[in-house]
């Protein structure tokens, strides 16, 4: 039996995340990867605007938080000035795929040597359950109360599929944190995304399908089922690009 221990990359602070939220697992995976790669003391992380904005309280490394959607631009500034540092952004669906779409696409296309962790829970969490760019067709939110698609909202935006066409991108993988197997696979993907940066390979993004019981108005168990049954169908898991 492996023994469980704290990772030094997370602080000893209780998070503000709701019960059943996927952020805690994703934080832990990123932190474990940073510890295993021995890069904590040269890592600079960028928090988004959204539920994870307070991650600077939880990560035991240099951190910043910037305007909604702008982490890839800020990461560009940091990484270009300090190419020897490890720079990652941690962004939600609204941050990365709505207000920050331009920053995401262009940082990816420039092949910025950064790592992006993209948490897709198909909803705006912090503001209370509004429609996200990744909200599923037919899914209700406080701003798509009849279900997405009834009033011109369009279908969900698929980030890995969108970025796959860009030559500047090195690595794209969509993962989930809804089953132990998925969690292990997500960790492998996150580790690869960081290793790519260490090796100077360029832009790597790992999408993580994640639970939001509070704003989905589901129990924690139902939320896991929702990821496994609904989200994985709309957002198929797998490697979307790997330049190797």
């Amino acid at each position, binding site marked *: 039996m492996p023994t469980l221990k704290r990772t030094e990359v997370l602080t000893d602070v209780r998070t503000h995340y709701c019960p059943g939220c996927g952020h805690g697992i994703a934080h832990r995976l990123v932190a474990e990867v940073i510890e295993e790669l021995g890069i904590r*003391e040269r890592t600079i992380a960028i928090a988004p605007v959204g539920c994870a904005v307070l991650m*600077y309280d939880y990560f035991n490394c*240099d951190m*910043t938080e*910037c305007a909604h959607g*702008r982490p890839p631009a800020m990461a560009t*500034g*940091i990484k270009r000035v300090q190419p020897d540092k490890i720079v990652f952004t941690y962004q939600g669906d609204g941050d990365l795929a709505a207000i920050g779409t331009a920053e995401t696409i262009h940082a990816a296309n420039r092949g910025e040597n950064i790592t992006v962790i993209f948490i897709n829970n198909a909803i705006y969490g912090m503001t209370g359950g509004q429609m996200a760019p990744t909200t599923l067709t037919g899914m209700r939110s406080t701003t798509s109360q009849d279900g997405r698609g009834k009033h011109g909202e369009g279908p969900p935006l698929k980030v890995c599929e969108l970025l796959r066409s860009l030559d500047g991108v090195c690595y794209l993988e969509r993962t989930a944190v809804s089953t132990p197997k998925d969690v292990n696979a997500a960790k492998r993907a996150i580790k690869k995304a960081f290793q790519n940066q260490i090796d100077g390979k360029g832009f790597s993004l790992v999408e993580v399908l994640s639970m939001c019981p509070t704003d989905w108005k589901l129990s924690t168990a139902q939320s896991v089922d929702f990821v496994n049954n609904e989200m994985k169908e709309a957002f198929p898991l797998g490697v979307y690009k790997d330049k190797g």
Partner: protein
Amino acid sequence: MGKKILLKGNEVMCEAAVQAGCRFFAGYPITPQNEVPEYMSKRMPQVDGVFVQAESELAAINMVFGASASGVRCMTSSSSPGISLKQEGISYIAGAELPCLIANVQRGGPGLGNIRASQADYFQAVKGGGHGDYRVIVLAPASVQEIYNLTMNAFDWADYYRNPVMLLGDGISGQMAEPVEIFPYKPIVDLPAKDYILDGCAGRKPRVVKTLVLKPTDGLVTHNEHLQEKYKRIENELSLYEEYQTADADIVIAAYGITARIAKGAVSLARKKGIAVGLIRPITLWPFPSDAFATAAQTTGQILTVEMSHGQFIEDVKLAVNGACPVEFLGKGGGWYPTEELILEKIESMAAATAKGNL
């Protein structure tokens, strides 16, 4: 005496920035400041600096945010519509107390406006522009030489006060070529250690650069009070202006930037006609040199504000004068600029009205 070279204002600004140690530039093309990203795209690699042509002004200012958090001297530039887009980032950078230089080579507005010179972004530059209670140090060069000097100073003041500095120019001074004396950069203040930068937490506790302040409940109140104390200090320490022939002046012109350059010519024309005219030219628009105007208002008969906008700058002049003497206005936006003769005409009508009143 340093070497003199002939360069456009926009290019001089770039070279001064490079001389002052600026090693990061991010920007986006917009007329009339395109010489800036063009010059920087060639120059930055020569000095092991970074040039990024950003996908937008939003991205450019946030790249600068990241570069500044990394401790490097950095800048972005744009013209009026692009500066509007940068306001989000400027608010964040001011809130996070990071240094950087933002250049606005102003053009006509509102909206897309035109590409002629203008001073219609005065309110935006001096009163905030973005959200929240913050201030940006605003410098208004009146010649290409002054663009060189003030650009260098701007980086020092930005570092010294940990605050964004805006160089508020215009399409005329940006596009105009003049001989400039080039001299080596030397800091004009004792530069503080950058003990806030994010460079990995090796051998120290992790640092956070942020603008969100939720805890304690009144944390943001405290943070704002801290900012206001800093702004008060800047107001006390950094209020720059030029006075020209004001000692015996019956009329004092208030003008800044390229308008002041034209007004200076009008002062000479008026004096040849026997009208005692002087000029007060703010070099810092924030902090505003209120004392200079308050003092002048005690001795001069009236003040004439000249600006390439519809009465923005005049509000600060009037606040400074506080009713102590009449303040007249000459100005238009949309790419209009005053000539020496037009200003003289206004001066003559003011002088005539006063003489009539005295009878």
